[in-house]
C-alpha cells in the first residue's frame, strides 16, 4: 500500500442515509437518500438554511441519535457497531451553546480532551501533556495556557474548544457552527485555521455553518441540504449543477455564479 493511497483514504461515509426522529406513533423524516464520502485531510462544510436538518445530520454522524435507515461508516467501521466508550477515539466534537464551565484554565479545559486516554483519576501522562501542548500551539494559545477561560474573548474561547477537540486526537472532527457569535475577521480566521489544521495534520473536519460565502472559497467539499434533498460535491461542481439557486427565495437573495457569492437583491422602488 503506497502512502499516496493512505493519504486519501475514505474516513467517513454515508450511504442511502435517511435522517429523522422516531416518535411514539410517527416517524418524522428530515432528509433522505444522503450519500457522501469524506477523505482524510478534507475540510467539508455542511450548508443549509435554519431547520433544514444540519444538526440532525451532525447528531446522527456523532452517534447521538440513530439513523432511520442507511449506514454510516467511520474508518471502515459501522457507526452503529461502535460502543459509546470507543467513539471518543474516532471522532471529537466542537459544539455551540453547551453549558461549558469557563472556570477552568485554558490548559485544564484542553486537557479534558484527553479524557478517553487517561487513567481512572484523569491523570495526564507525558504523552497527554505533549498532545495538549501541541493542540494549544496549533491554535496559537500556548501563551494563554494558564489564563482562566473566563477572561478570554469569544473568539479565543472558540479556539480553546477547537484545541480541546484537537487534543482528543481523533481522525475526524465534527463542528456545529464554529463561527457563530464571531465578527467577520474572527469568522475568516477560524475557518482559515480549520483549513490549516486539515492540511497539516491529515485530520478531516466537517462543520455546519451559515457562512456560505466563506465556505465556497475555502472548503474542499460541501454537503448542501435543501428542502430534504442532499447534494454533495466540490464547490465548483455544486455551482455548475445550479444547486445554490433554490437555496433562498430568489426575490430576496440571488447567487452570482461569476463571483461565487450570494447577494441581497436590492428592492428598487
Amino acid at each position: 500500500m503506497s502512502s499516496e493511497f493512505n493519504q486519501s483514504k475514505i474516513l467517513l461515509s454515508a450511504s442511502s442515509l435517511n435522517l429523522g426522529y422516531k416518535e411514539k406513533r410517527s416517524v418524522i423524516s428530515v432528509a433522505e437518500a444522503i450519500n457522501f464520502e469524506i477523505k482524510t485531510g478534507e475540510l467539508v462544510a455542511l450548508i443549509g438554511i435554519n431547520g433544514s436538518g444540519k444538526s440532525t445530520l451532525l447528531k446522527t454522524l456523532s452517534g447521538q441519535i440513530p439513523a432511520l435507515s442507511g449506514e454510516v461508516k467511520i474508518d471502515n467501521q459501522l457507526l452503529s457497531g461502535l460502543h459509546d466508550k470507543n467513539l471518543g477515539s474516532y471522532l471529537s466534537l466542537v459544539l455551540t451553546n453547551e453549558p461549558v464551565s469557563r472556570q477552568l484554565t485554558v490548559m485544564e479545559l484542553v486537557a479534558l480532551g484527553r479524557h478517553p486516554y487517561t487513567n481512572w483519576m484523569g491523570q495526564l501522562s507525558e504523552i497527554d501533556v505533549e498532545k495538549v501542548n501541541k493542540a494549544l500551539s496549533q491554535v496559537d494559545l500556548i501563551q494563554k495556557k494558564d489564563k482562566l477561560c473566563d477572561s478570554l474573548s469569544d473568539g479565543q474561547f472558540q479556539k480553546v474548544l477547537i484545541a480541546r477537540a484537537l487534543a482528543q486526537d481523533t481522525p475526524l472532527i465534527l463542528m456545529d457552527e464554529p463561527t457563530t457569535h464571531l465578527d467577520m475577521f474572527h469568522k475568516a480566521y477560524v475557518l482559515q485555521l480549520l483549513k490549516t489544521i486539515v492540511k497539516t495534520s491529515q485530520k478531516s473536519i466537517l462543520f455546519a455553518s451559515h457562512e456560505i460565502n466563506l465556505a465556497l472559497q475555502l472548503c474542499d467539499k460541501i454537503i448542501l441540504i435543501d428542502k430534504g434533498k442532499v447534494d454533495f460535491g466540490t464547490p465548483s461542481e455544486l455551482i455548475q449543477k445550479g444547486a445554490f439557486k433554490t437555496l433562498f427565495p430568489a426575490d430576496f437573495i440571488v447567487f452570482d455564479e461569476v463571483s461565487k457569492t450570494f447577494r441581497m437583491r436590492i428592492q428598487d422602488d
Partner: protein
Amino acid sequence: MSKSFINHFLLFIVLLVGVVMSLSLGSVSIPFEDIFKSLFGLSIENSTWEYIIVNYRLPKTITAILIGSGLSVSGLLMQTLFRNPLAGPYVLGLSSGASLGVAFLIMGASLLSGFLGEFLYSKWAIILSASGGSLLVMLAVLSTAQRVKDTMTLLIIGLMVASLTSAIVSVLAYFSSSNELQLYIFWSFGSLGNLSWKEVGILSLCWFIGLSFAVFCLKNLNALLLGENYAKSMGVQLKKNRILIIVSTSILAGSATAFAGPIAFVGLAVPHLVRQLVPTNDHRVLLPSIIFGGAILMLLCDIIAQLPGTESTLPINAVTSIFGAPVVIWLLLRKRKLNF
C-alpha cells in the same frame, strides 16, 4: 499542584483549630490542658470532665466534621451533575423524603402506638424512618433517572417530589396534636449532639462509602464541566455516571439527615465558598478542599450554636443559615461574581 497542596495544608490547620475550639467550648468550661490530656488517653483529676469530653464533645465534633463535609460534597456533586449553581444535596428530594418519614413516625404515631409502644419515640425509630423516607425517594428518583434523557427534567422532578412531600407533611401536621408537632419541629431544627459512639461509627461508614463513590466519579465529573454532549462524545456513559453520582449523594446526604436532621444551607453554600478560594473547577482539587471547607463551616456553626459563655444552645439548622447566608452574600458582593 504545589499551590493546591499549600491550600489544603492551610485548610487542614484551620480545621484543627476548629476541632480544638469546638472541644473546648460548651456549657461546662474545661481547661485546655485537661482536654488534651483526656484526648490522648491520660487520666485527669475531674472524671466528669473526662466523661463530657469523651462521650459528649468528641462524638459531636466528629459528627460535625462528617456531616459538614458529607453535605458539602453532595452539594458539589449535584451542582456539577445539573450544571446549575442553585442545586444542593436536597434537590433530589432527599430531605423531604426524610421529613416525610419522620412526620409519619411522629404525627402518625397515634395510629400505630398500640403495636410499637415506646419504640416509636426512641432515637433509632427516628433514624430509621428518616433513612427509610430518603431511601424511598431515592429509589423513585433513580428509576426516573434511568428513564429521562435530560438531567434538567430530573431536577424538576426532584423539586416536584419535594413540594409533594411537604404538602403531605402539612396535612399530617394539621391533624396532629401540639405535642407531636413540637416533637417534629424539634427534629427539623437539626442537632449534632446526642450521637453515641455506635451511631458515629455508622455515620462514618456511610460517609466513607459515599465519598468513595464520589472519588470514583471524579474524572467523569470533570468531563461533565463541558456539558453532557461533550462528556458523551468523550466516552462518558451518562446514565451509569448519573446513577453513581445520585447514589453517592443519597448515601452522604441521606445519612446526614437521618442522624442530624435536615440541615439546610451548608451543602449549597460550601461549594460556592470554596470556589471563591480555589480558583478552579477541577474536581480533583475541589473535592478535598470542599471536604475541609464543609467540616470547618459546620464546626464554626456548632461553636456559634453553643453561644459561648452561656448555658443554652441554638438549633444548628438556624445557625447555619443565619450566620452562613450573610457570609455568602458578602463574598458574592465583594467578588461581584459567582465562580461557577
